[in-house]
């Protein structure tokens, strides 16, 4: 999609695009918009090196189909099956079709994928895939991709097509009557709000980790942006589908991920029955049992009668140091276990959110001129994401959104936005001048406790009711309380998005009275054809309204914007 093939049909002047978030999806979208001649403001609270994208370890999927006859259709089938058949098949087909071109592009811009002696990219096995199709760059594929993308985006910064703004924390969208005209940011250094107007706004704000406290991911991905936009009218989707990664280790500062690559390279899970090792995944699912999809492995670990261990010792120290050096390092430094000598105790922990903004195949939300990409958008992964598909979806969604932005009608001249901006400024000033010493993070900690307690690997009506009651209590008191603002007023005003998001997650989980993928109900253990739909949730004057639709119809796009 160079400028000549994607010249925007409606464009008189180059359009201004605001991309919020500078992880892999945001950078990809910004680069592709700039490549098509658009002007991009890339706004982020920090720099790409801090984005959660850099933590993605295991790799990126593409049916490169060389030796074992893999093809995008098989990738599509595995992704649909892994997602328990609720994702929009057409969108997933687009993802899987684009994958080989994406990996080729990434190699072109400098991602050093591991290669064999013939120079071909090496593919590794991952859970739920019928073929080896995960390309990787050492143990830091995400980081390597981020570096390559920054080397591209910097080129457009030098050309003046991308304006890079750091230290800006998303506050709210500038939305009037369902049309988005830009966004407000809190400048963490100047301590004031700043509006940025645009013809199109792209959310690339990552997952909803913060609602669950510290997870395997970045503390920066707290879900506030999705929650705030939900209150402002954006429709969210499939929030009940939360991926527990099967293998994480406890450390004094957080639960850390033991990459699925450890099982991809042959690692085995077992528990002890007396002195006997029970390789329960192999007993249940055969020799490839350790590489079942994450929802299944996590549930089996959860059901195990005693502590589960991951064993890679039999691979030998040489192979471990060569193929899994990062896993070795993390387990040794933070967990005190030498995986070349001993099995490491593991347990599932919150890792990825399949739910997020409801988007159509062009990554448009239900709010006009608002797009969502990367983990904050919900579209490809259905009820459970396969390993290696998140990096793929991050790049692909950035490309798709950039294409759509070039083709859709831009927002017209904005109405008077000053009342919106004045209200927001006054509210933030109130937070900043609060004399209270009570930190908002205490409320966040309680919220995380509630969510982890009642939205674990299994759920039931009793626990979901209890969680709803508890979150409602905090929603109520947080409106009345004043909070300590000496860390940052963001700590306090972010509650206005995070608590409603938590409430929405609980509402979705309670509405889906079946078990599917990562959503397992003790009281409804069976899969039901009645629920082969997306869970859509909207905020309507204080009410949390759930609606069921096929995924392909999750969003109604405004006619004058880009209905197709």
């Amino acid at each position, binding site marked *: *999609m*160079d400028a000549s*093939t994607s010249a925007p049909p409606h464009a008189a002047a180059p359009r201004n695009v605001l991309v919020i978030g500078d992880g892999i999806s945001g950078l990809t979208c910004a680069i592709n918009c700039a*490549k098509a001649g658009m002007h991009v403001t890339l706004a982020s609270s*920090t*720099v790409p*090196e801090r*984005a959660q994208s850099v*933590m993605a370890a295991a790799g990126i999927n*593409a*049916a*490169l*189909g*060389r030796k074992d*006859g893999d*093809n*995008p*259709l098989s990738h599509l089938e595995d992704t649909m099956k892994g997602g328990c058949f609720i994702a929009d098949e*057409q*969108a997933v*087909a*687009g993802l899987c*079709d*684009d994958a080989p*071109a994406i990996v*080729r*592009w990434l*190699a072109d*811009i*400098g991602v*050093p*994928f591991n*290669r064999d002696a013939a*120079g071909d*990219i090496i593919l590794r096995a991952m859970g739920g895939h019928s073929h080896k199709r995960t390309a990787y*760059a050492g143990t*830091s594929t995400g*980081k*390597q991709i981020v*570096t390559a993308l920054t*080397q*591209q985006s*910097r*080129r457009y910064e*030098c050309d003046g097509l991308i304006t890079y703004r750091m230290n800006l924390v998303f506050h709210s969208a500038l939305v009037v009557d369902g049309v988005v005209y830009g966004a407000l940011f809190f400048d963490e*250094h100047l301590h004031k709000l700043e509006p940025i107007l645009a013809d199109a706004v792209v959310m690339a704000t990552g997952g909803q980790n913060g609602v669950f406290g510290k997870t395997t991911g970045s*503390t*920066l991905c707290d879900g506030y942006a999705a929650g705030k936009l939900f209150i402002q009218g954006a429709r969210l989707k499939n929030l009940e589908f939360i991926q527990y990664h099967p293998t994480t280790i406890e450390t*004094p*500062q*957080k639960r850390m991920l033991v990459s699925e690559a450890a099982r991809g390279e042959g690692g085995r899970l077992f528990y002890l029955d007396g002195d006997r090792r029970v390789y329960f995944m192999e007993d249940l699912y055969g020799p490839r049992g350790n590489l079942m999809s994450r929802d299944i492995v996590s549930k089996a670990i959860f059901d195990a009668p005693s502590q589960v261990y991951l064993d890679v010792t039999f691979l030998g120290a040489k192979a471990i140091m060569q193929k899994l050096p990062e896993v070795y390092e993390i387990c040794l430094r933070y967990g005190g276990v030498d995986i070349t000598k001993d099995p490491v105790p593991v347990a599932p922990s919150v890792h990825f959110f399949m739910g997020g903004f409801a988007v159509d*195949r*062009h990554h448009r939300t239900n709010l006009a001129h608002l797009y969502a990409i990367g983990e904050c958008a919900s579209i490809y992964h259905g009820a459970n994401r396969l390993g290696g598909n998140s990096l793929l979806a991050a790049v*692909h969604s950035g490309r*798709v959104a950039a*294409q*759509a932005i070039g083709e859709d009608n831009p927002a017209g001249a904005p109405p008077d936005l000053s009342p919106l901006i004045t209200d927001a400024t006054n509210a933030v000033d109130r937070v900043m001048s609060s004399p209270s010493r009570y930190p908002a993070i*205490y409320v966040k900690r309680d919220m995380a406790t509630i969510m982890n307690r009642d939205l674990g690997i299994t759920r039931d009506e009793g626990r979901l009711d209890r969680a709803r009651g508890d979150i409602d209590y905090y929603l109520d008191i947080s409106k009345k309380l004043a909070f*300590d603002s000496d*860390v940052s007023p963001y700590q306090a005003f972010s509650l206005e998005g995070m608590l409603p998001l938590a409430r929405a997650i609980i509402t979705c989980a309670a509405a889906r009275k079946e078990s599917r993928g990562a959503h397992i109900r003790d009281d409804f253990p069976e899969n039901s054809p009645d629920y082969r739909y997306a869970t859509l949730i909207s905020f309507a004057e204080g009410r949390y309204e759930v609606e069921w639709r096929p995924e392909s119809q999750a969003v109604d796009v405004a006619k004058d914007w880009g209905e197709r």
Partner: protein
Amino acid sequence: MTRLAILRQKGPGEAPYWQRFEVEGTPNMTIAALLDKLNYDDDVFDIDGKPTTRVRWECSCLQGQCGACAMVINGRPALACDTFLRDLKGDEITLAPLTKFPVVADLVVNREAIERGLQEAKMYLEAPEADNSLAADDKPVTNDPSNREESHIAGENASGKPRTAAAHNEKLHDLQYTAARCLKCGLCLEICPNYVHGRQFLGSLLANNAFLLHSQSEERQQELKESFDAHFLIGCSKSLSCEEICPVGISTLASLFFMNRRRTH
């Protein structure tokens, strides 16, 4: 009990001051875990029992992969999430913000100069192949069914060519891979005797980025060399303190060697 002395500062331009705390630390905790405990176990009091504000510091990954929490620990620049109490000596741990960047508050500094400097030094990759390979698809990137071809089997041509012929050179591949792991944390600039905020010299951070781009780029080698000279070579006194301090083990010496070797060709 672990004794902590923290160099605090309310905001930009305000006077810094030392404040002491006692926190219950264990040997396997990191400084990051200790700061979290200090801030959020309860209300915060200094060592004399006086109530005080929470200590500001930056974090994201909490496992040594993102560079957010760079600070000066017991006089040595390091990442808080990767520094364990078990490895620290003495009765008291001192924490101070990086000195080479303007303080935002407490242990948070503004490192925008790093990104702006890399931009000024034009540290980007010209990748015409990227444009070609995308244009060669000759179809829009979309999930729209009307634009879809039949599922095609991607053959050899989709294997993705390495960025340079050097992909078969294992040593160079390893150096590129390591250089691309640069966290832009600023520890190498903090320890560097020659780096001064706002000046043209950008230390080993620039040298390693220049090496990476130079080794990947047929198109801009001359320009990158000139930038390397102007933003690194001219100011480097070869103390190489950056070598030891880099949390991901990037070798400035290797970058330097590579850049010098190439220029004799």
